[in-house]
């Protein structure tokens, strides 16, 4: 009779259920395989590798009896290599004149000074001493590693020179605009802030701003104009990795033997 449950109907139903279950199984399995293939952003990986090599570099690490200590930075070596700021580069004029201004040689590093760096990449480095960072002072060592062999190669014709020269001219010193958008860099503020309460959070936000300068201090149009003027800089890429937002923890050792907590923050600007 029509509608009766027969042996046939049961087998047919089981077959359908089996095929559906198998298809689901295959789909899930395929998805699991795909998920294991991690697609890493190469440049983010580059930034991390660079930061790790930097905190082991002989030009900045503490050395005693022929042993170099990874992650322990020598304050005297930092003084020689980087530009030292006592107010955490919170002064817009200092930021403009030191970091952006291509003519300012202090803190500008070629491969002769420190032989680290990728081709077609500029690394902006900030090393913050947390134990000397409060509302009165904030010790930060800053440097820009340029993709040139010597600073003599860093001339007006160099695309990076043209790019930074253009940014310096565009800089209007309006610190309020990036400060307002610093909330976007709460990751830095959160991590660094946890070390120093509300003041730490403010410093963290400030540090975040330093590295968000291209996105916060300049409009996309301004950056595009500077890229066009540079000639060779196309498809600018600014790292968003943890090395920029939070940095790597380090210790900073001074000549009198005192050891301070610090953090190395690496900004990564690459182009094709």
């Amino acid at each position, binding site marked *: 009779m029509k509608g009766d449950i027969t042996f046939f109907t049961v087998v047919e139903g089981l077959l359908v259920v089996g095929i559906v279950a198998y298809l689901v199984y295959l789909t899930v399995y395929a998805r699991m395989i795909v998920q294991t293939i991690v697609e890493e952003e190469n440049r983010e990986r580059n930034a991390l*590798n660079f930061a790790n*090599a930097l905190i082991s570099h002989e030009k900045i690490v503490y050395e005693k009896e022929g042993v170099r200590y990874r992650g322990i930075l020598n304050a005297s070596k930092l003084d020689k290599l980087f530009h030292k700021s006592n107010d955490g580069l919170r002064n817009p004029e200092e930021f403009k004149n030191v970091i952006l201004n291509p003519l300012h040689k202090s803190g500008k590093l070629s491969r002769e000074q420190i032989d680290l760096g990728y081709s077609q990449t500029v690394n902006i480095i900030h090393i913050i001493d947390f134990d000397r960072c409060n509302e009165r002072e904030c010790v930060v060592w800053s440097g820009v590693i340029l993709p040139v062999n010597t600073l003599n190669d860093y001339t007006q014709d160099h695309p990076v020179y043209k790019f930074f020269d253009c940014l310096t001219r565009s800089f209007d010193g309006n610190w309020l605009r990036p400060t307002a958008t610093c909330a976007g860099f709460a990751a830095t503020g959160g991590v660094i802030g946890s070390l120093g309460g509300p003041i730490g959070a403010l410093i963290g936000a400030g540090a975040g701003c330093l590295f968000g300068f291209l996105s916060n201090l300049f409009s996309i149009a301004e950056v595009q104009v500077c890229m066009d003027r540079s000639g060779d800089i196309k498809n600018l890429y600014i790292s968003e990795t943890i090395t920029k937002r939070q940095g790597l923890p380090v210790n900073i050792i001074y000549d009198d033997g005192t050891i301070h907590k610090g953090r190395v923050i690496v900004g990564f600007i690459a182009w094709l």
Partner: protein
Amino acid sequence: MKGQIFIKWFLAIFIISILTLLILSTIFPRLFELIIEFLSQASSDVVASQLSALISTSGSATSYIEIEYSPTKDITYDVSSVNRRLTVIPRYEMSFLKNLKAERLYPVNLTDFEYKNVNIFKIKKEFDEKSMRSVYTFSATKWSE
């Protein structure tokens, strides 16, 4: 009578289908796994990525490190580096796979090099006390049984 023959055929096909599905469910995933494993280990993109990462990682050693990397015995590569840009070209036998070139960057002061038909790579970093600088060396050979 006709119905009985149909049920027999149906059961036979059903059982064969189930057995086939069971076999395929074991073979196919394993096959996929092997293909993916092979591609993940041997593709020029992965080899270039691994090599550049290992070269960069050698920079994290403060004094001395020696790293040996052999992605596969079955495929050889043409590897070169110019201005800290690493290029890897696999030597696949299949003609359509021949031009799978991959490029990666590394940040350390390793001098330019070029090796052909190799699949064992060695990276060495040591600190030269005279010049007070890190010296990086790269060498490559072919796997021999």
